[in-house]
């Protein structure tokens, strides 16, 4: 039923119809075959694709469990209004993008990006046996390994796979503490928050001493070794980051909460060798249990403004062709509203891929609001790792099975 309704939509720009796209994602056939080639062969393709060597992936995490149903509202579905009589957003207030969906009224930026064909929305992203704990679920998304004890982050493993030579500053995490997502076996991620303060104070005469870092001699305990490695990375990166930020001046308006996207734009503008950026809307901001309407709209406006600003800025810098942005949250929220005009922790959610090279449109099957699980939650339809595989294979042209510890079929978002 759902599939038919969706297939009625307009064909996407690359000539694929919705029906075909859906078939692919639902049945694992068709274009999926293209992406399950032996990795030797795909590596050969990667070598030929010179353009992919300059491609950059930016991951934006919305922490706290963003309410997907009030972000992209399925306004044609009566069940939505039945389950959310008080906080459901009426169709006339939405920023409608087609005959089924409308963005939250605060999201002019996302509306524009979708209508310009620069945004892919992937429906129903989640995993089996979902955790309702922020911290556990986020750890699953960070490691790309739900219900396992994976030690490294998927972005960290991706860095190791794409860059076996361990290029300095290959992996940047703009945050106040290092995300598990970027934890890597070989790479030391460059982690900073404020570029202006990412530098060492010190008098001229003490500089040589401050910059000299003890060599590892194998006698250190693991904590000491870690500190020495981080010190090395700090010394290598801090000057570059500071200079990039000092040089960067943009006329682009990123809104009231630009997140860390201008910082990333400054590094891209400065030509840093970084191919993987990771950043977050921090501190569980999206955990909207109580009186959520106004707060949630504001949060979404900030995100939407910042992302739209980032895309305009990349255009200005001349790197819009080289950057793709992926947006996710650790879970969606319970479908029925709670009695405090908010929502509780839920399951499946949308993911967004944004960029000039993105084939815009809908991907994946929207979970049914009429067939919730025992806990009133959406049943996921898309393993979120398929979206990871999409950026790894489709965008970065690297094999994904080793990074993701299994085969996940990419979507044809980067055709």
């Amino acid at each position, binding site marked *: 039923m759902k599939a038919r309704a969706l297939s009625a939509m307009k064909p996407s720009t690359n000539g694929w119809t919705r029906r075909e796209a859906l078939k692919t994602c639902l049945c694992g056939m068709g274009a999926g075959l293209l992406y399950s080639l032996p990795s030797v062969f795909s590596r050969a393709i990667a070598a030929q694709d010179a353009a992919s060597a300059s491609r950059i992936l930016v991951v934006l995490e919305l922490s706290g469990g963003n309410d997907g149903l009030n972000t992209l509202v399925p306004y044609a579905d009566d069940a939505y209004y039945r389950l959310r009589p008080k906080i459901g957003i009426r169709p006339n207030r939405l920023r409608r993008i087609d005959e089924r969906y409308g963005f939250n009224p605060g999201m002019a930026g996302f509306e524009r990006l979708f209508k310009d064909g620069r945004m892919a929305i992937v429906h129903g992203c989640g995993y089996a046996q979902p955790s309702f704990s922020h911290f556990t679920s986020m750890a699953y998304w960070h490691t790309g390994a739900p219900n396992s004890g994976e030690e490294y982050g998927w972005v960290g493993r991706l860095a190791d796979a794409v860059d076996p030579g361990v290029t300095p500053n290959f992996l940047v995490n703009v945050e106040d*503490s290092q995300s598990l997502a970027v934890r890597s076996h070989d790479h030391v991620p460059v982690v900073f928050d404020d570029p202006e303060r990412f530098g060492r*104070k010190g008098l001229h005469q003490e500089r040589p001493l401050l910059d000299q870092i003890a060599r590892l001699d194998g006698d250190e305990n693991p*904590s000491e070794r870690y500190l020495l490695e981080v010190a090395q990375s700090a010394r290598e990166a801090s000057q570059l980051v500071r200079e990039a930020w000092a040089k960067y001046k943009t006329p682009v308006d990123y809104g009231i909460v630009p997140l860390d996207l201008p910082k990333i734009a400054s590094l891209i503008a400065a030509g840093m060798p970084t191919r993987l950026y990771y950043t977050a809307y921090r501190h569980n901001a999206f955990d909207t249990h109580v009186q959520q309407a106004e707060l949630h709209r504001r949060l979404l406006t900030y995100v939407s403004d910042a992302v739209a600003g980032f895309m305009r800025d990349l255009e200005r810098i001349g790197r819009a062709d080289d950057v793709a942005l992926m947006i996710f949250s650790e879970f969606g929220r319970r479908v029925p509203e709670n009695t405090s005009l908010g929502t509780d922790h839920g399951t499946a959610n949308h993911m967004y891929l944004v960029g000039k090279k993105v084939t815009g449109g809908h991907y994946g099957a929207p979970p049914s609001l009429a067939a919730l699980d025992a806990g009133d939650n959406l049943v996921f339809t898309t393993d979120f790792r398929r979206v990871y595989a999409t950026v790894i294979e489709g965008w970065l042209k690297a094999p994904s099975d080793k990074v993701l510890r299994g085969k996940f079929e990419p979507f044809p978002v980067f055709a």
Partner: protein
Amino acid sequence: MKALFAVVLAVALPALGAAPAAGPAEWRGDLSPISTGDWSAARAAHLLERAGFGGTPEEIAALAAMAPRDAVRQLVYYQSIEDGLPPFDESGIHDPGLEPFPASRPAATDLAKEKGESMGVKVKPEGNRRLQPVANKFFYWLRASRLETHRLAYWWANRMLLTRRPLQEKMALFWHGHFATSEEKVRDYRKMLRQNRLFRDKGTGNFRDLLIGVAQDPAMLAYLDAGVNVKGAPNENFAREIMELFTMGVGNYSERDIREAARAFTGWNFVDLDFTVSPDKHDAGVKRVLGSEGRFDGVDVIDVILSRPVTSEFVAGKIYRYFVRQDLSPELKAALGAKLRESHYEIAPLLETIFLSRDFYSPASVATRIKPPVDLVVSTYRKLGLKEIPGVPDFNDVTEMLGQKLFFPPTVAGWAQGRSWITPGLLLARGNFVYDVVYPDINFVPPDRYPSNDYKIREVNDKLAQGLDVTAATKPDAKDMTSMSMQMADRDEDFNTRLASYRGWQMAIEKVKPIPRATAQVDLPAMVLGAGCRSPREAVDYLLRRFLSVQVDASTQDRIAKFLESEIGTTDLSQARTYLDEPLRTTLHVILSLPEYQLG
């Protein structure tokens, strides 16, 4: 004269020539107590580093002179030691009209529209911006409570610095991270203070008492939305965090257990600073939680949770990882959990076991802990021998920058420990903190007077003084204004939000007492000369031992000594006495910027 010198040397350099702190590798995982023969100054230093905020050579020597069991017991059973520290000196910013404080600015002004009054302020009957005083009062309290919380953090930090019961403050800090509650949401310093007292009074007592205290604590109830958890409409937030973060950890309960437990906590709420139960909002029906069934209330659920062995293991394991090290074997965890159960959740005996154990002094434990930011800052000041927390640099700005601002934990999960404290950016920031202590910034502006982070307040201030009308003075001057959020100016003509924000700040700094802004009072020449150091090499050696928990390699030590020598232009320290201060400050900055200084 010579004899006197020798005595000074012995007191001042307890670690010199002593055995290293770490015992044999076999001690790892061994909870049996160390013997008197195993005791040394280096181990006493390790104990003070973990059970407190580090020690001066004098404090270490005093502890080293005791038997290890007595030393540990003195730290753990501190009740007979006078602390003699003053209570928090409140500014007096609160008035009864503020209660109950509205949830948001719209809630405050809507209430005023409806009732003609809000937060004790009446709506103007006529004229322009009739609700302006109401909006002002709302922002006044937000800002005043925040600034007062910053003073509260100073008060607490001074306790950590000066206390003779260091473990009491350290445990309070541990519980603050465990039962994380933030002023960001609570918006009432009085509740934060009350909770802080709870952690101090019950922090080493019985975990059940503490847990019930926290579950009935107004700050926690406000933080986890207890007010909306009512009969027929349970809100899961509180019940979930109790099970997941406070007692058992994920994987040890079902979603159904959470929903049932939430029912037991219905009706729990607070009025101003008091815990209340509303019988009409409490669900008195039968609940089934973790296999037990009954007409449970919140305390009953807590008792069901405490009866599970996994709870004792979770709590004991977390205490262990905080004080000893991150990696904890399942066997050790089970043993520690059993210990806590046997003592019926008394925390002090568990701490005694941990601090006396061979495991605590094994190479896996000693000097492997990355100091959390508050530990780093307070222990640096303590080792410098300071008698008060400096006002410059600002303690709250420094700790926030380093990732651990007191009373403002980032999420309900508190602060992640271990390696997550260190990133390239944060490692540099830690060195910069030391720079700001030894070379106080002359551009320093007190953040409790000057709205450093809010240029809009400063702009409104200036424009009003130039005679601009309120609309003109508060108009945002954004850049290309293409974003939606920049255009969301307040169109309500009943009041002006930007004006209220500015007036709120003004009213707040009138009431909130200023934080004293003395810089660090250090006398490094007296410190090193008093310790008997005669050459740059001895001074560097002394400082390394006084401040670091690990031995740095000989070549680093050599380079720093040569640096100091070239700065003072002689190898005779006493000859340089009159100008020794600045070279020693630079040297200390170099030493405390070593990555190794982050280990405690």
